[in-house]
């Protein structure tokens, strides 16, 4: 338990000390929010869908959590050769404790980053329909963070070379974001795209957050949470298994 805590605390300390990185990582979400949010806003409005900023703010929060969580896993590849990871791999503690500490740490950082973006969306004019639902929305955000931190751990444990990073970015992280319905409604999609969005875990995350924050949901919050919980358990198990197989 002390081991899990100390590794979790380590991730948190590192995050809070990297001010430059915090500011830099806000760039992408701000661009989406600013350029897409205000740029596509009028079209969205004319299509009778209401405020695009309201619609996409939960999507941008989801994106931030996804990117932050995935990056922590990719950093693991570097960490394994030149960093602290090897120190933990030869310590007399179960690999599972190390994996859980790291994953929870990564997830916490992702939630903090998501909170920051939530603040930014409020400044930009985003208004949740009910303040009571905000803490619930953050539970869903935490689920998203755990899912992708665990997936990132699995990937970070499996990759051998830095070149794999580009692959993961282009073939996993970006599709996960673009297929999630973060920036467009899920209604009336072409069949293939619709099917693809349904196998993307982030779809349910964004839908759940959106349901709670603006009362608009495609699947229903209960189904969203059920899917996220299921996928979460699956990914944590998968991540733990891959992590236990690391040979340095």
């Amino acid at each position, binding site marked *: 338990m*002390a*081991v899990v805590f*100390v*590794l979790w605390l*380590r991730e948190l*300390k*590192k995050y809070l*000390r*990297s001010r430059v990185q915090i500011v830099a990582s806000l760039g992408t979400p701000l661009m989406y929010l600013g350029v897409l949010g205000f740029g596509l806003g009028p079209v969205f409005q004319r299509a009778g869908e209401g405020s695009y900023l309201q619609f996409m703010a939960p999507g941008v929060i989801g994106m931030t959590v996804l990117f932050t969580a995935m990056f922590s896993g990719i950093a693991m590849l*570097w960490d394994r*050769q*030149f*960093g*602290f*990871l*090897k*120190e*933990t*791999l*030869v*310590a*007399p*503690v179960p690999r599972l404790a190390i994996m859980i500490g790291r994953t929870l740490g990564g997830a916490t950082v992702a939630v903090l980053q998501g909170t920051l973006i939530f603040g930014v969306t409020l400044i930009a004019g985003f208004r949740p329909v009910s303040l009571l639902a905000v803490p619930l929305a953050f539970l869903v955000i935490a689920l998203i963070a755990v899912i992708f931190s665990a997936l990132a751990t699995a990937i970070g444990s499996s990759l*051998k*070379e*830095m070149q794999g990073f580009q692959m993961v970015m282009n073939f996993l992280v970006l599709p996960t974001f673009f297929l999630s319905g973060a920036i467009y409604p899920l209604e009336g999609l072409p069949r293939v795209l619709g099917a693809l969005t349904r196998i993307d875990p982030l779809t349910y995350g964004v839908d759940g957050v959106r349901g709670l924050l603006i009362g608009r949901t495609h699947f229903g919050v209960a189904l969203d949470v059920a899917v996220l919980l299921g996928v979460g358990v699956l990914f944590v198990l998968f991540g733990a298994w891959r992590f236990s197989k690391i*040979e*340095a």
Partner: protein
Amino acid sequence: MGDQSIIRVQHVVKTFGKVTAVNDVSFDLRAGEIFAFLGPNGAGKTTTIKMLTTLLHPTSGALELDGLDVTTHQTEVRKRFGVVFQDPSLDSELTAWENMDIHGVLYHVPRHVRRARCEVLLRMFELWDRRDDLVKTFSGGMKRRLEIARGLLHTPKVLFLDEPTLGLDPQSRNQMWTHVRNLRGSEGVTVFLTTHYMDEADRVADRIAVIDHGRIVATGSSAELKQQTGTDSLEAAFLALTGTTIRDESATAADQMRQVARVWRR
């Protein structure tokens, strides 16, 4: 001599696909000695250390540390050694003290013992004044010293040092060896080090195993190796034993990452 073996390696083989990195290696370490693996890059030194430190499983053969089988008693074995890898394994975003403290938690060292040990070791390695500074502000030599101090925190029986002076300037290298030699007195720890610098093996080690192409070609004190080969320097003995000086190896994924790391640090 009647000395007790703290490490026993018997007929160990490690293959990666078609490449045999370690080929039927056997040796013993006596408790309290400084033992050096001397050989060129790619000779199998690091692979052997990784097997002894539970990071790699041998393809065949047996490894024992303090009477325990390394492959089947991983956790028990891990409590008994400290290791400084060839590549840094410090958290550079944390302070020296925090790095030490986390290590103490990972090795279940009780809080009060942890504090006392951290202080003793940081003073011993002349890092006490810098304990609250972030490791990223440290020089190469300071980082390496901190890693050794950290590796000793849980009072291990064996300390593994994989190329501890690689990339250090001559002054830091000297300082490093003074520290390592003093350890025997202060900590009573057995030291297993690897190096490809012959002068260092010559100066520091009680016994040297010359390794090349994954095989141990000779074992003995520096004097014994010279005598055995009828040469007057360890360098000449090495040449006589291996028939080469330095061999070029094809780069591995880790080597490529090391290249990038070097550029980044500049």
